[in-house]
């Protein structure tokens, strides 16, 4: 489509223009730990790249306010930097635009259910700072089709977004098993979902989390079922440009902070009391009662206090956006803390 080319051309042009400015800023402020952080502070808000819209992950309401688990990460970072979770400007990005938007410097951070892969980490020049959601890819099908598991889809037409990891995963998985599928690829996830809903395809494929959100866009969500089996592993998390370790540290430790808070039972409701009364050394460090963790990152003493108070810990964010407190009703599963049988095992704040 032409608009896609226009956007890409615009992103390329932005890279040409913004690149030298970013480079200049980097050399001009050698004292700052992170050039990106200095820019964000000077600008007064965080630029966050998100998905164009999946309920539970990043979705704007009728007032244009964004919510979701990916959005909550942006809000936590903004709260840690500015003491105000609302100081974020969201840039909705399609599957194709996201990398150009990030590498051109249009956004400081991409928080957009993107899978961590070797090529993206190396050749594309990005850092996957931490994993904030573990999942696998599966399929949504019409109940009437009577499909139980992915291999029953032999001969099916599969709607996908062109160039997504889902496209390659599905192609490889069925080929390996000598099964045949017809890939029907669209520019946007939404076009693919709409085509599936119009019965052009027998299935639409995505990660379990994204599917739970996309399902809500179908005309009759109850007529569809998400298959239990998965065909891939999809570790997803926030992405930054390579070359600014200080900025990566900020994102990584804000996210770790939301996990540490959950581990010690620090919530949005009790964070004031915890800062005053807690005798746990890590909690005191996290909330700025002891030590100078915030300053080391180039932030204020209250960084995680503000983040937890305004956005909540990881468990709260999860339940509110995609868990039992939301319409998606996803189980915590892999994304539970390791103490409760999940994979969320966090580094130590000392």
């Amino acid at each position, binding site marked *: 489509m032409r608009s896609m080319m226009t956007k890409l051309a615009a992103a*390329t042009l932005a890279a040409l223009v913004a690149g030298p400015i970013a480079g200049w800023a980097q050399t001009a402020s050698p004292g700052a730990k992170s050039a990106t952080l200095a820019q964000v502070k000077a600008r007064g808000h965080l630029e966050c790249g998100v998905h164009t819209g999946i309920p539970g992950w990043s979705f704007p309401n009728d007032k244009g306010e964004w919510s979701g688990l990916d959005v909550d990460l942006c809000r936590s970072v903004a709260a840690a930097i500015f003491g105000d979770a609302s100081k974020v400007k969201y840039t909705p990005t399609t599957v194709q635009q996201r990398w150009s938007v990030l590498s051109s410097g249009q956004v400081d951070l991409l928080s957009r259910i993107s899978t961590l892969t070797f090529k993206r980490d*190396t050749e594309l*020049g990005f850092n996957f700072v931490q994993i904030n959601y573990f999942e696998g890819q599966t399929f949504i099908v019409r109940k009437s089709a009577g499909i139980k598991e992915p291999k029953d889809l032999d*001969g099916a037409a599969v709607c996908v977004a062109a160039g997504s990891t889902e496209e390659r995963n599905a192609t490889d998985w069925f080929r390996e098993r000598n099964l045949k599928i017809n*890939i029907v690829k669209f520019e946007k996830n939404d076009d693919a979902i709409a*085509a599936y809903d*119009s*019965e*052009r395809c027998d299935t639409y494929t995505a990660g379990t989390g994204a599917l739970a959100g996309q399902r809500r866009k179908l005309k009759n969500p109850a007529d569809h079922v998400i298959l239990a089996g998965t065909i891939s592993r999809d570790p997803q998390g926030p992405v930054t440009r390579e070359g600014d370790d200080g900025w990566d540290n900020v994102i990584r430790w804000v996210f770790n902070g939301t996990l540490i808070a959950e581990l010690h039972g620090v919530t949005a409701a009790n964070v004031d009391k915890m800062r005053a009364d807690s005798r746990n050394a890590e909690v005191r460090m996290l909330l700025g009662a002891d030590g100078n963790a915030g300053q080391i990152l180039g932030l204020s003493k209250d960084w995680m206090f503000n983040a937890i108070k305004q956005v909540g810990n990881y468990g709260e964010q999860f339940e509110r956006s995609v868990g039992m407190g939301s319409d998606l009703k996803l189980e915590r599963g892999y994304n539970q803390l390791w103490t409760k049988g999940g994979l969320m095992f966090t580094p130590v704040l000392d």
Partner: protein
Amino acid sequence: MPFTDSILRPGRLLHDGRVRGWLAQLAIALGVLGLVWYFVDNAGQNLARSGVATGFDFMGARSGVDIDFKLIEYGPDSSYARLLLVGIANTLFVSAFGIVLATVLGFAVGIGRLSQNWLLQGFSTIYVEAVRNVPLLLFVLLWYYLVIRGLPAPRQSIDLFGAGFVNNRGVFLPSPVAGAPFYAVPAAFAAGVLATLVLRRWARARQDATGRPFPVFEAGLALVAGLPLLAAVVAALATPWNWPALRGFGVRGGVAVIPEFLALLAALGTYTAAFIAEIVRGGILSVTRGQREAAAALGLSRRQVLRLVVLPQAMRVIIPPLTSQYVNLVKNSSYAAVIAYPEIVSVFVGSALNNTGRAVEIIAITLAIYLAINVSVSLLMTWYSARTATAAR
């Protein structure tokens, strides 16, 4: 000569209008080149600094993506270069059919708008106004949803009298097991064209000599269309067929024409036809009334007036804007990306760019290919226009 004067007296060189003109042009050319160099150099440096891999080496790597509609051999193990070829072939395929459809429909509607028959005229006018005032993107989506919602699901496929099926996954037709006998079809087509040319020459000579006309158009049509058809029937009988059959999720076997192709072809053809119709109408109106009246006075029928007098003169006015429409149609085929027809933008700017991250390289290649296709179309049309132009008066 003022110029030689100024060469002899260099001080006056700057007062020479032509020299100043050259200098200005040189300065502008250098400025543009410098700007381009600056941007290219900057982009290169920025890419190098950001650690993004660059270069065209990715073209040889395994693509890992599959295409459900391809005219050349291709699979997930093929390279990105091969993927690009699949995209180019699909772009050319839909554009070629689109141009034929748009031309036939456009000429019919354009002539229809000038018809004495008010029903035909009214319908043509409504068609042009309704179609050309709608954004093409919406038009493409409209056709797409008409096609995939209008056709039945695979289980309720429409049976084409046992020869194939139509459903919202496409049109499924039997495919020949061996393709070789079908080389006779293009050969027969070429023979038909050649025979028509010879026939036309003979008919002209006879008419000049005896005054008796010969229905060259009808005979030519029969030769050009009939000979390949005959060859196809013979070839079809000579080879075994792979019949499509309803099985599992859809249809197995045979050859499939995907609904995205049908929708895109319909959208591009009907949309561009509205513009071509206006061009044709303008061209015909540009032929003065005296020409028609003179032709009628010679006793030519209304059809003969149109075909022998009006259209040949109108064509000189029609060709240049018609070329623009053809070029537009080729470019507009990139709207396919929203409806999953795997042409160059969808497969290369979509899948390949996203998998490799080589934005600058891939956009540059894609732009170069559109440029090459459209310059070829323009050159072809210019050649045709020069050939049919009357001698300058």
